[in-house]
């Protein structure tokens, strides 16, 4: 064994963890119906890969090897449990998993050698692992919809999605959401118990319920993304990984449901927003707003990917222009402008008009007003913001007075602008935002 071969083995395990965790776990959940058992056996299978691949070589089909090892471990554990407690129910589970398998009947379950392709073992007469579900639906899709089931609390959906689908450890998820690890562990256990006790099915919803349920899945993924994207300072390192994780899982959903425009649109939106992540804070850790960002720090690769997704969607006949699609197109307009001044705010304002037509929320109305203001209509934008302020819908939202301040500054009224920005300062939720607003107030005070 050379050092390089060992490195290759370790790299292969890391790659397989990223690419195959969801498949191995999802298959095992279908076969055993036991989420905890499935996760433990999947984790153990990866631990065996770490032990064996560096010295013995990487199997030709790493995913199949891992699934087979994990399943052998599951059968073994179920049998031991059944022997220990002689519980009828679990014995029935063993039968379900084995389904006519001859080798697994022995007490010690043999593991395939890593050099082998476990698929070769499948050809034994009567062998039916049931690794391919009878309905032909990818098990990972079942897992996606079950983790994001609306009968689970939102924080449980997020935790379960990252743990079971994403393969993050409980400790990693706890760190990312700034809660103690035992709290997160209990949240995940409770979620799994609720799936079993409430009768949440392990399946993809039928056509009638699909649009709403897919919307729920995408909302969870976007929430994970934003938890990572909005992190700042010391949290940024721990939480920033969530943005990448959300992109990876959204990519998976897009691959599994390639005809769903809103899923692809969310992927584009995440890529385009994430492209600015490194430019949102300067070297001193200060928040930098979009128009002042150093565009050379934007991730050109992510911008190209996001724009490519949108181009493909535009070519689809009868494509849906949903909320994620419109937000992604807005993000693309910003991302492809060579300078802040060259931004096509007329187009952005038009997109916000369209978005406000399908999403009448006050935050969309705020952004729409601001876009019209930046598109050379500051007074019209300000009037709209004043109406929004009078409605009281965004009373505690710091970005409303901040937006009023920016349009007042454009109208040549620095004193009124500074007053609004001070109001925003009093409401801003984070220190980074307060510092940014203070700097802006100082600029305006110096201007008059």
């Amino acid at each position: 064994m050379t050092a390089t071969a060992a490195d290759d083995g370790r790299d292969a395990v890391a790659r397989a963890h990223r690419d195959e965790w969801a498949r191995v776990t999802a298959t095992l959940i279908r076969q055993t119906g036991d989420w905890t058992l499935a996760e433990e056996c999947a984790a153990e299978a990866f631990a065996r890969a770490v032990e064996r691949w560096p010295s013995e070589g990487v199997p030709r089909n790493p995913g199949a090897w891992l699934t087979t090892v994990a399943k052998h471990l599951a059968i073994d554990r179920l049998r031991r449990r059944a022997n220990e407690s002689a519980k009828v129910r679990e014995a029935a589970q063993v039968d379900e998993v084995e389904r006519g398998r001859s080798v697994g009947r022995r007490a010690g379950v043999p593991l395939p050698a890593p050099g082998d392709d476990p698929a070769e073992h499948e050809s034994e007469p009567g062998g039916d692992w049931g690794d391919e579900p009878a309905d032909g639906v990818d098990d990972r899709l079942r897992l996606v919809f079950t983790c994001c089931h609306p009968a689970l609390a939102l924080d449980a959906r997020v935790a379960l999605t990252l743990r079971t689908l994403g393969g993050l450890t409980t400790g990693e998820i706890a760190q990312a959401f700034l809660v103690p690890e035992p709290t997160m562990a209990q949240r995940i256990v409770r979620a799994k118990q609720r799936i079993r006790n409430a009768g949440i099915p392990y399946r993809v919803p039928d056509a009638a319920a699909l649009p709403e349920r897919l919307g729920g899945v995408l909302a969870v993924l976007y929430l994970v993304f934003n938890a990572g994207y909005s992190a700042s300072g010391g949290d940024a390192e721990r939480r920033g990984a969530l943005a990448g994780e959300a992109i990876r899982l959204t990519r998976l959903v897009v691959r599994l449901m390639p005809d769903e425009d809103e899923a692809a649109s969310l992927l584009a939106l995440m890529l385009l927003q994430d492209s600015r992540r490194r430019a949102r804070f300067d070297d001193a850790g200060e928040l930098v707003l979009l128009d002042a960002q150093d565009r050379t720090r934007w991730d050109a690769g992510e911008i190209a990917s996001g724009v490519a997704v949108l181009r493909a969607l535009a070519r689809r006949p009868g494509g849906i222009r949903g909320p994620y699609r419109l937000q992604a197109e807005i993000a693309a307009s910003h991302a492809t402008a060579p300078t802040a001044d060259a931004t096509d705010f007329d187009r952005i304002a038009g997109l916000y008009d369209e978005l406000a037509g399908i999403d009448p929320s006050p935050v969309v109305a705020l952004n729409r007003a601001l876009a019209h203001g930046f598109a050379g209509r500051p007074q019209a934008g300000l009037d709209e913001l004043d109406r929004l302020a009078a409605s009281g819908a965004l009373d505690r939202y710091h970005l409303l007075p901040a937006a009023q301040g920016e349009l007042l500054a454009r109208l040549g009224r620095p004193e009124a602008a500074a007053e609004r920005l001070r109001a925003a300062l009093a409401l801003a939720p984070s220190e980074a935002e307060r510092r940014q607003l203070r700097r802006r107030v100082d600029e305006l005070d110096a201007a008059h």
Partner: protein
Amino acid sequence: MEYLLIVATDPEAEPFVAEEDNVGDWVDDLEARGIRIRGQRLRPPADATLVRVRDGELLVTDGPFTESKEWMAGYDILEVESLDEAIEIASRHPMARFGRIELRPAWPMDVHEPGAERHARERAEEEAAIGR
């Protein structure tokens, strides 16, 4: 799985419109789909009777009279594949609009297992689940 579908009033729901109370269609549709269902409307809390034994003494009173504006107005028992099917059925009950519906999964047990044993066993299982 078996679910108890609790039909309840809800002051925050839209006002009841008698002409749109199509609960008969709802029952027919379930029967036609082969879903076993049985249920009843319930008399209001004013007609309820409360039974208690305290210090060995039987107490029978009318009530309970609570300030609550949400009360159980009826029930159905469903036998379905999963929660998703139960949700779909509940969503089409007229009282999902005019009131609200709570789905409670049945929790089967061996009624002849001694209570102390069942209690100890279920506690141990719960602790094992949390511990790992």
